[in-house]
């Protein structure tokens, strides 16, 4: 298997070309959770094993790109790649977003104890809706850039925190309506799309959505769940 000169090759980050190896490594350190994630997604081809070994050797000492660096970057395409690598979670946490709505749903679910006996587990599921002013992200790009919205939620099993981008209409409601009110449940509902009518129940595990059919279900064009559907149909979410 032929190799290539690591330091003279061109590197690509999130589809953008033109990076040096040292620069790309800083972006990748921000983008990938661990060296294993990097190896899984980037260096799976045998010809990239030298690159993999080099990155792995330096992984712990690589300084990931920061939100502040991204904000100072004048090349807008590169800045967007930086935001992509940094991720919505770190971006929102760093930039002091405005909390628009917070709702807590009490849920009861069946669980099983160590003796495999079912019991009812009651817990609170919290959803927060945030707004980040556009001028915090794109100060030099335009005079009044659009705000960005995200919903924050927690995995009910691991309690890991997630931030998910959502569009303005999901955050604030229909733009035609005179009364636009932020709604964290409507926002999280929007993140789920299904393609059957009359679902019986919906399960979510990470990015995987499973919609259980009812006898009335038929195939439809994909659609986002409404708040009411989310509250009545969502059975399990981890």
């Amino acid at each position, binding site marked *: *298997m*032929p190799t*290539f000169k*690591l330091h003279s*090759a*061109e*590197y*690509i*980050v*999130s*589809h953008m*070309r033109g990076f040096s*190896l040292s620069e*790309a490594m800083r972006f*990748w350190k921000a*983008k990938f959770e661990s060296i294993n994630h990097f190896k899984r*997604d*980037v*260096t799976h*081809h*045998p*010809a*990239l094993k030298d*690159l993999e070994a080099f990155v792995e050797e330096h992984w712990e000492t690589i300084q990931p790109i920061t939100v502040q660096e991204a904000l100072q970057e004048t090349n807008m395409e590169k800045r967007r790649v930086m935001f992509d690598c940094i991720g919505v979670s770190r971006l929102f946490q760093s930039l002091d977003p405005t909390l628009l709505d917070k709702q807590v749903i009490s849920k009861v679910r069946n669980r099983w104890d160590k003796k495999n006996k079912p019991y009812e587990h009651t817990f609170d599921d919290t959803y927060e809706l945030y707004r980040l002013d556009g001028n915090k992200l794109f100060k030099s790009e335009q005079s009044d850039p659009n705000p960005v919205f995200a919903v924050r939620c927690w995995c009910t099993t691991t309690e890991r925190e997630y931030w998910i981008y959502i569009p303005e209409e999901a955050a604030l409601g229909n733009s035609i309506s005179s009364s636009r009110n932020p709604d964290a449940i409507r926002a999280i509902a929007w993140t789920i799309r299904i393609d059957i009518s009359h679902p019986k129940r919906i399960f979510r595990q990470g990015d995987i959505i499973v919609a259980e059919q009812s006898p009335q279900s038929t195939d439809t064009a994909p659609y986002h769940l409404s708040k009411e559907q989310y509250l009545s149909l969502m059975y399990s979410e981890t």
Partner: protein
Amino acid sequence: MTHKDYPTMTEYCQKITENGQQLCVSWNGGHDSGYFEMSINEEIIDTPDDLQNAIIDLIADNTDYGSFAGSFDTEGEVYYNPATKCFEGNDRYTDTREEVKECSMEVRVPRDIWFDSIDIQLHADEMEIEELSAFMVIKDGARTRQHDVIEATLQKALIPQFTNEIESIKDISGAWDVITINYKDFSAEKSELVFYIKKFDYSFYFSTDSEIKIDLPN
């Protein structure tokens, strides 16, 4: 000749055609522009009067092409028939329709090169291939001179294959397609990866001829 001389369209048309003269309204248009015009014995009336304009408008309303807005072409003509007191003729309406061309075109790359997918972009009109590019997509990773060489080689190998396929399509109006081949979709053959493109999208001209008969108002 004015509207006042012939109070109805029928009277006007009868008078014009009473000695075997031909009164015709024709049209040609599509893709957001076009025209209707009247002619007598093939002589176009450049500045129609009110009554002639009313007849042209009547024909235009009946054909329902409006301002010819849309991606179609139309050409037609109707002649006044004094026996039936109607305008009669034909319209040829040409539109494009999309279709899938089945094929078997080979994409072959060395096994020792890495990529996430290969995008093959095709843009052809009815005459020839205007653009055919092959691009090795890498989301994150390294790109070398070898990628450029393989892309150029691939492009060179695909052009004659696509040209043969496109030349075999009757009435083709164009082909615009981006074919994405993921790395995992290739099969390994010795030192190479091989994929066969089984189809691509194209459009072709589709014409319909229809007879037209337009009554005049009493």
